[in-house]
């Protein structure tokens, strides 16, 4: 059986004896003439994790979560309640609590019907069972041995492996029933290297909505170990980072976290409807240099940020946010799309049944340009090459954003020279992309480890970009004197 709806019915509804007439009753309980939209979101998720440290498998855990969130919307008002008991009485109580947002009651019955799933970006399988436990343990040991065998300066290695199967089923007020079975895997490696009393750390890893065979293919997991060691050894040689505003070349791939922070959040529908984003009211205005095109694309097969449907049952989209430098689109969930008179874009996401959906990114990246990365480095007389990054943060209203380099080098006379310590970079979202003077031809997506936090809710996301030259970003090192 590979139909997501059938799988979701079987794994969530059948064990607790809930049928279509019950779903119908819940939707009716949520509805009234004053309610504009309502939905019930069922979720069942299983997570298994393993952790290796000091060369031994030290810990592992298994987590099972299930529940349902019930939402009723009237105008801009949302009533919400959830239950971790999937039992009609508890769910009806939650529906009554959610509907209390609007007075009155008595809605026409609806017919529950499944919409045929058209998209198949990942298989509805359980990645936890895609490899037996002994083989997972063996994989962690091989990653550990690879990292330790590379260099005697490697002192500590920590490896973790997580596999999740998340099954969701959404019933909307029109009776439409949608489901998605979402696999997610992730491997992380942290390395501490030491030389002459100096210690430095680095981390690497990757993930996807695929089975664990992906980690084994092409020595991928061992590659993450090698990458973590390489970065830790580079950091052992790093000198102080410079301080001040300078030309910065950003590497391809994960440094696309720049886009996520600098413009992505500012283009989410909720902030723009409320007028609290630095990008509010700026549709059709130039917000980036010519040649800069940025999309949010939930339709990439197997990617960490991809979704067949979002958490409101809307099919995922590839939404163009910036086209050749001009702001052309926002990311929307149903509520904000309706209130702004726009179409939902498949960006309605929630951390779990116990959280309300809101507009969130999926995979956000800049399309490739035509400059060779070598040519971009060679064009800089004096500046910083930021090859890799940690996380970032943005103030949506003022537009100020930061992101922190984890691997960086000085550029002197068009050549990459000495490595420098990680430093925070700061800029202004509506302004930074206007300073992009060269876009590389080497578009790369990140390895699949990104998690985005907003209003206390975490969701998996992807980012990507080609090598970029930005004329004027502030680098927060200590090397001023």
């Amino acid at each position, binding site marked *: 059986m590979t139909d997501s709806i059938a799988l979701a019915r079987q794994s969530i509804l059948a064990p607790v004896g809930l049928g279509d007439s019950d779903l119908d009753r819940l939707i009716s309980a949520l509805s009234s003439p004053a309610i504009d939209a309502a939905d019930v979101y069922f979720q069942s998720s299983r997570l*298994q994790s393993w952790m290796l*440290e000091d060369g*031994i*498998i*030290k*810990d*592992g*855990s*298994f*987590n*099972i*979560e299930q*529940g349902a969130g019930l939402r009723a919307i009237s105008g*801009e*008002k*949302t*009533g*919400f*309640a*959830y239950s*971790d008991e999937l039992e009609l009485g508890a769910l009806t109580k*939650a529906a009554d*609590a959610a509907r*209390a947002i609007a007075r009155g009651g008595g809605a026409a019955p609806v017919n529950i019907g499944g919409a045929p799933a058209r998209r198949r970006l990942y298989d509805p399988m359980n990645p936890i069972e895609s490899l037996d*436990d002994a083989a997972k*343990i063996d994989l962690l040991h091989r990653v550990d041995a690879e990292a330790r065998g590379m260099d005697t300066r490697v002192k*500590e290695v*920590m490896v973790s492996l997580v596999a999740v199967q998340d099954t969701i089923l959404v019933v909307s007020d029109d009776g439409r029933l949608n489901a998605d079975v979402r696999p997610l895997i992730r491997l992380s490696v942290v390395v*501490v290297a030491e030389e002459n009393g100096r*210690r*430095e*750390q680095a981390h690497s890893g990757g993930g996807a909505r695929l089975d664990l065979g992906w980690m084994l293919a092409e020595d991928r997991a061992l590659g993450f170990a090698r990458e973590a060691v390489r970065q830790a050894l580079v950091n052992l040689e790093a000198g102080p980072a410079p*301080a*001040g*505003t300078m030309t910065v070349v950003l590497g391809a791939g994960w440094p696309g976290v720049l886009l996520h922070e600098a413009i992505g959040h500012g283009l989410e529908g909720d902030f723009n409807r409320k*007028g*609290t984003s630095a990008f509010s009211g700026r549709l059709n205005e130039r917000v980036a240099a010519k040649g800069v095109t940025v999309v949010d694309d939930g339709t990439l097969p197997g990617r960490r940020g991809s979704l067949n449907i979002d958490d409101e049952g809307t099919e995922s989209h590839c939404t163009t946010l910036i086209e050749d430098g001009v702001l052309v689109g926002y990311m929307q969930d149903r509520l904000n799309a309706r209130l702004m008179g726009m179409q939902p874009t498949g960006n309605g996401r929630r951390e779990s049944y*116990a959280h*309300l959906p809101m507009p969130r990114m999926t995979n956000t990246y800049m399309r490739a340009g035509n400059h060779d990365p070598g040519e971009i480095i060679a064009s800089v007389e004096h500046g910083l090459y930021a090859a890799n990054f940690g*996380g*970032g*943060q943005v*103030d949506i209203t*003022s537009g*100020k*954003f*930061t*992101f922190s380099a984890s691997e960086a080098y000085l550029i002197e006379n068009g050549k990459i020279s000495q490595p420098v*310590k*990680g*430093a*925070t970079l*700061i800029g202004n979202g509506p302004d930074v992309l206007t300073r992009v003077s060269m876009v590389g031809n080497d578009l790369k997506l990140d390895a699949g480890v990104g998690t985005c936090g907003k209003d206390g809710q975490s969701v998996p996301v992807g980012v990507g970009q080609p090598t970029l030259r930005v004329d004027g970003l*502030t*680098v*927060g090192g*200590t*090397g*001023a*004197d």
Partner: protein
Amino acid sequence: MANLATADTTEQLQRLEQSIDRLLSEAKRCGATAAEAVVSASTGLEVAVRMGEIETVEHTRDHGLGVTVYFGKRKGSASTSDLTPQALEDAVAQACTIARHTQEDPCAGLAPAELMARELPSLDLDHPWGISVDGAVRLATDCEDAARAQDNRIINSEGASLSTHAGLKVYGNSHGFVGGYPSTRHGLSVAVVGKSGDEMQRDYWWTSARAPEDLEAAESVGRRAAERTVARLGGRRLGTRRAPVLFRAEQAAGLLRHLCGAISGSALYRKMSFLLDQLGEPLFPVFVQVQEDPLRPRGLASAPFDGDGVATAPKTIVRDGVLQTYLLDHYAGCRLGMTTTGNAGGVRNLSLRMGDKDRAEMLQALDTGLFVTELMGQGVNNVTGDYSRGASGFWVENGVIQYPVEEITIAGNLKDMFKGLVEIGNDHDFCGSTTTGSWLIDKMTIAGE
């Protein structure tokens, strides 16, 4: 062992204690040589209003259980939100399956029985608030109204929200220890947007407490959010320079958290700390005294026992600038050849002895430099102590605020920053489990234009 609780919560506590019993006996039945479990239940209400209208009304109701089984020196864990007897059994079975694959770890196991909390002191943490949805909406509205009325440059709002949560938590292990207690937490917060020309700025304020009567008044929370927001308007950048930096008390509390991260057991045994082998060494100037009081009545981080069941007690972390203790749970203690300090689950209610200068006097002491009121980004390296973060605040000359600044970074190394602490203010002004005044640090690198 439940401490002061109403009849209703007493009954609920007993139910959760029964779940613990069931988990532990099931673990024993499966052959585990030791086990520990934690079970929790909570309910709550969260109401948000924006521009005078209700935005969301959320009713929350959560359950959770976690169980860890030990087979000699091997362990496995499982967790679930389902507290039915079948789910308890399944969770134990899952944990046992995991433990078949983990390896012997000489330090794995429960903390020694003699360290378990014997009596649970009453910490006065349980103050349920029977506020209605309408009542909650009214308070949140009052708060937002006060913020919007404070200044005509406040032109928009992200809304105000009021939350109230009541929960129960019970921990038990195969030493025979079972302890549980109810606690509540209430909060009110608001964020508003100010505008001047094309520039928009946002800021917020909040209050949080165990008892509703300890919350700051709604109007006061609103006014402070508005004051903080309009103070940011007209923000400029600074030229790159080195200068003294005054961290507002809220941001200084963040520096204390970095200290705690670096002296925590897990960072130390992994050698992922910039404060290795610093016990008994001076980290700060002699006037610095840091205390932890996990038993503070109504404290936001108070707890009678830690995550291992070990009794908590007040202690001195820094005396006369010298580091007195690490923060260890049982496992990290064993790894370091030391004894747990009752810090499984973290540090609880830190306080730093404040000096005698108020805000204005601290600005005088800063003289000419940067007054930091917000920090952004994750640029703190716990292994090296390297510190580089986005900042905003105010440029100060001769003790007087000149103008707001933004889009700059401040950088240094935490070890140097701790040593370079010149003075601590008495201007503690925020809610939270950490109590400190502002910190004046002698010199940092500011990067800007």
